[in-house]
C-alpha cells in the first residue's frame, strides 16, 4: 500500500453512485506516473476501484476481467454488483496466506428484475483477504483512507442528486489527497446513473 500509494472513494446518492480515484503511481516518495487509474468498469452500471500495490492492481484487474467474462458467457447475463463483490471477495480469499495487497471498492446500480423492480444503488468494500463491508453512505480505501473518512463524514448527506453527488465526491477526494503525500497527482471521477456513466478528470494540485 505505502509503496505505490493511491486512494479510492465511492459514494451513494439518490438513484446514483459515484466512484473516484487519484492518478498517482509512486515508488515510495518518488512520483513515477500521473496517469495511473485505479477504477475500472465491469459493465455500464458497475465499476470497481483497487488501490494498493500497483503490481497486484494489474494482476487482479486482468484476473477479474477473465472471471467476469467467463460469468457472462456461462450465465448469458451481466453480473450484479452484489455477485461481483462476492466474486472479488472469493478471489482475494483464495490467496488467504499470501494475499494481494489491495483494498477493492465496488460501486454500481443493479438492473431492475421482476423480483426487484426498484433496486437501490450499491457500494461495498473489502480488506486484503476479502472480508466484505457494505456501507449505506460511502466507502473509502487506500493511503488517504483516514483523511477520506473525515472529509466524507463532513460532506456526505443522504439522497444527493447526481450533480450534487459529483460535487461531494470530487471535493472529498480532492481535499483528502492534498493531506496525503502518497496520493494525488490528478483525480478521475465516474458518476453512475441508471441510464449513463459520466467520467470526468479533475484538475488537481500536482505537487
Amino acid at each position: 500500500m505505502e509503496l505505490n500509494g493511491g486512494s479510492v472513494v465511492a459514494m451513494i446518492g439518490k438513484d446514483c453512485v459515484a466512484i473516484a480515484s487519484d492518478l498517482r503511481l509512486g515508488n515510495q516518495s518518488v512520483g513515477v506516473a500521473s496517469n495511473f487509474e485505479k477504477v475500472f468498469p465491469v459493465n455500464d452500471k458497475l465499476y470497481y476501484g483497487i488501490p494498493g500495490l500497483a503490481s497486484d492492481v494489474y494482476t487482479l484487474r486482468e484476473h477479474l476481467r477473465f472471471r467476469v467474462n467467463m460469468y457472462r458467457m456461462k450465465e448469458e447475463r451481466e453480473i450484479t454488483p452484489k455477485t461481483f463483490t462476492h466474486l472479488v471477495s472469493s478471489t482475494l480469499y483464495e490467496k488467504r496466506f499470501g494475499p494481494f495487497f489491495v483494498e477493492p471498492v465496488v460501486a454500481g446500480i443493479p438492473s431492475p428484475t421482476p423480483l426487484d423492480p426498484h433496486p437501490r444503488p450499491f457500494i461495498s468494500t473489502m480488506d486484503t483477504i476479502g472480508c466484505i463491508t457494505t456501507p449505506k453512505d460511502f466507502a473509502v480505501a487506500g493511503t488517504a483512507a483516514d483523511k477520506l473518512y473525515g472529509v466524507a463524514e463532513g460532506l456526505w448527506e443522504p439522497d444527493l442528486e447526481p450533480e450534487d453527488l459529483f460535487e461531494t465526491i470530487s471535493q472529498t477526494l480532492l481535499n483528502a489527497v492534498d493531506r496525503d503525500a502518497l496520493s494525488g497527482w490528478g483525480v478521475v471521477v465516474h458518476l453512475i446513473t441508471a441510464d449513463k456513466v459520466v467520467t470526468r478528470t479533475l484538475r488537481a494540485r500536482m505537487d
Partner: protein
Amino acid sequence: MECSFGITGKDYVLIAADTSAGRSIVRMKSDENKIKTLGPHLAMAYGGEPGDTNNFAEYIERNLRLYHIRNHFPLLPPSASAWIRRTLAESIRSRKPYAVNLLLGGYDTTTDLPHLYWIDYLGTKAIVPYAAHGMGVYVSLSTMDKWWYEGMDKREGIEVLKKCVDEVEKRLTVALKFNCILIDKNGIHKIDLSEQDPIAKVEASPEETAVEAPNPPIEVGA
C-alpha cells in the same frame, strides 16, 4: 550505482543506460551494454541484481523472437509490455524471483506511435512519456519535468537527454558513461552522445548507425 533513462518524442523513443558493472564501490567493467534490442522496433534498458539481469533479458529476448517466428509479426510494444510485466509479477511470488528493473521502449509501426514503459521487479508497470531507473531518478526526473514537452523532435529529445546525463555527472559522486539508442519507424539506431549532433549521422547513413536486430526477417516458403 546504476542509472537509465527513457524519453519519448513525436515519432521516436530514446533509451540510455550507463555502462558500468561492479559491486558496491568497485567498478569491474566500464563497457557493459545494458540495453537489449528485442525486435525490429523494440528495446529495453535493464538493471538490478547481476546475473538475474542478463538471464531475464535473454529469456525475454528469445520468447519475443519465438513469437516473431511463429506469427511472422513481432509483438507490438503494448502487448510486449503486458507479457513482460506478467512474467515479473509471477516471478515475484515464486521461490526465486528475478530482481530486474527495466525501461521498455518501442515504436508501434501500426499506429506510428512511440511507447515507453517503466517496469520494476515487482511487476509494476507505468506508461510514461519519460522515465528513469536507478540513482539517476533522484536527479534527472526533475530535469525531465522541466525540459520535456509533448511532440519534441529528435534533436530536442537528445538535448533533454544530454541535460540529464550532465546532471548525473554533476550531482552523483560516480562518473558514468552512457550507451544510447533511438527507436523510430526505421528501426533502432546507435546514438553517440559525445557528438555535437548525433542525429545528423543517423539521418545521413541510417544503415551505418542501425543496431543489428536479434530478429532478422525469415524467408517463409521460399
